[in-house]
Structure formats: structure tokens, C-alpha cells
């Protein structure tokens, strides 16, 4: 058990919490919140692995910065999709919009 183990376990907890939320949430906004939790766990595990082993520090930090940029783009697109779904269906339940037509 090293310090890396603790950080990776914390990241794993974030992944598990996000996955559980993704399953149990009924609306698209709740699912977006859960996905953000999982992305945060991914960034934490990348930084912990890069900073505390012999790997390049800058590589790990830049990878996490890229993950953050992708998360921002993803949140923007999901916000637009939620608006469109809300306008067409009047609600944003994920089971109501499971058909692609």
C-alpha cells in the first residue's frame, strides 16, 4: 500500500459513485452530473499516476487539462441537447427519448 494506492482508490470511488448515479438518475441533467463525477475520477487517477511514479509530470498534467477541456465541450453539447429534447418532448426523462425518431 503506497500513496499511489490511496489516490487510485479515491479515483475509483468517484468512478463507482458516478456509475451508480448514471444508472439511477431518471433525467438527462442528473445523468450529466454523474458523468462529470466519473470524468473527475479519471483526471485524478491520471495525475496521481504521473506525479508519483517515474512518468513525466508534464504529460500527466496536460492529459488532465485535455480531459477538462473535453468535459467542458461535452457539457456544452449536452446542454444544447437537453434544450432541444425539452422543447420537443416537454420533459427530459431519459426513457421517453430512447427512440431515435
Amino acid at each position, binding site marked *: 500500500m503506497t500513496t499511489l494506492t490511496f489516490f487510485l482508490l*479515491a479515483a475509483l470511488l468517484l468512478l463507482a459513485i458516478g456509475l451508480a448515479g448514471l444508472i439511477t438518475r431518471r433525467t438527462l441533467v442528473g445523468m450529466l452530473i454523474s458523468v462529470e463525477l466519473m470524468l473527475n475520477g479519471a483526471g485524478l487517477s491520471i495525475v496521481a499516476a504521473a506525479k508519483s511514479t517515474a512518468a513525466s509530470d508534464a504529460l500527466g498534467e496536460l492529459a488532465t487539462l485535455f480531459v477538462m477541456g473535453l468535459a*467542458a465541450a461535452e*457539457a456544452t*453539447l449536452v446542454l444544447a441537447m437537453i434544450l432541444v429534447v425539452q422543447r*420537443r418532448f416537454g420533459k427530459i426523462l431519459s426513457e421517453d427519448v430512447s427512440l431515435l425518431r
Partner: protein
Amino acid sequence: MRDSINQIIDSLLGPLAGLIRSLQEWLSPILPEATWAAYLAFALYVLIILGGGFMAILARNLVRAMLGLVLAFLGVAGMYLLLNSPFLAFMQLLIYVGAICVLIFFAIMLTRNTAEGEEARFPSLPAIGYGLLAFIAPLLVCGPIIALHSGQIDVHVPLPSDTGVLGQGLLSAYVIPFELISIILLVAMAGAVYLGFRGFAPRKKGQSQ
């Protein structure tokens, strides 16, 4: 070092300080003070992440869920500080708490989805079962792998990182991912604006939006 830590503990915890001090006395032969403070901070951040995460997925009010998400983000920012990369901690606050949470707040507010929305009902019993399964499965699959194998890697204390090296990396070795991220952000913003504006145009007959 130990005096300043004790002062912080006294001012923060009050009655609990005696208990923690005895724990510290008990642990002091094994761990030096700085390490001990780091473990205490790590435990605090894990508690913040756990509380915020469970609030984010369990709260029936989506605004409360978003506040839990902010709490989890703050805990992860603290973890970045513990890993000796303050630049990433500030980026975490700036991008996640500053930008993404505002986006999520817009999504909540624009969809009539607060206290009496669709999330106000509890999920059905099968959904709760699947949720528990989804919570346990990653822990069961990845947890033993991490616990057994990550101890064999040579680990050193995280060194303070130089932000200048990050900037040089963005402009030299990793310039293509950097430009790709810019293009992805541009395309995503343009697509979001297009999707948002199209719905306001009056729909013509026979046009299936």
C-alpha cells in the same frame, strides 16, 4: 511544525482535538509530522468527495445535486494540491466549478426540473438494485487490482511542478492535441448555438425539424 499543526487542529475541531492529538501521539513513532498532516488532509478530502458525490447522485432536488457536485470538485481540487500540482487545482476550480457547474445550473433552470420535477420521485426498486450493482462492480473488479498491484510500483513523493514546463509542452511536444482540443471546443460551441437557435425558428409544414 507540530505546534502549528496543533494550533490548527485546536481552532478547527475544539472538543475533538484531544482525541486526534492522542491518535497523533500514538502514530508519531511510525509517521513523521508532515506525513501525518498529509494523511489527515487526504482523509478530509476523501470525506468531502464521498459526501459531495453521494449528495450529487442521491439528492432528489437537482439544485442540491449540483451543490454536491461542487463539493466533490472542491475535494478533487484539494487532492491536486496534495499531489503538488497547484496549477491543476486552480484549473479544476476555474473550469469545473466556474464553467461546467454554471452550464449544469442553466440546464436545471431551463427545464423546470427543480423541487417538483421528475427527479423528485424515488427511483423504482429495480433501478435502485442496478444502481447498487453499478456501484459495487467497479469496486470489486478494479479495487483488488489496484490494491494488489499498485504497491509494486516505485513511488516517490510528488515534486512541485513547473507551470512553465506545461506551457512549453503545450507549444512544442503536445501542440497537435492542444490544437485539436481548440477545434473540438469551437465545433461544440458552434453546434450548441446551432441546436439552440434552430428550435426558435417557426416550423414549416412538412419539415420534420
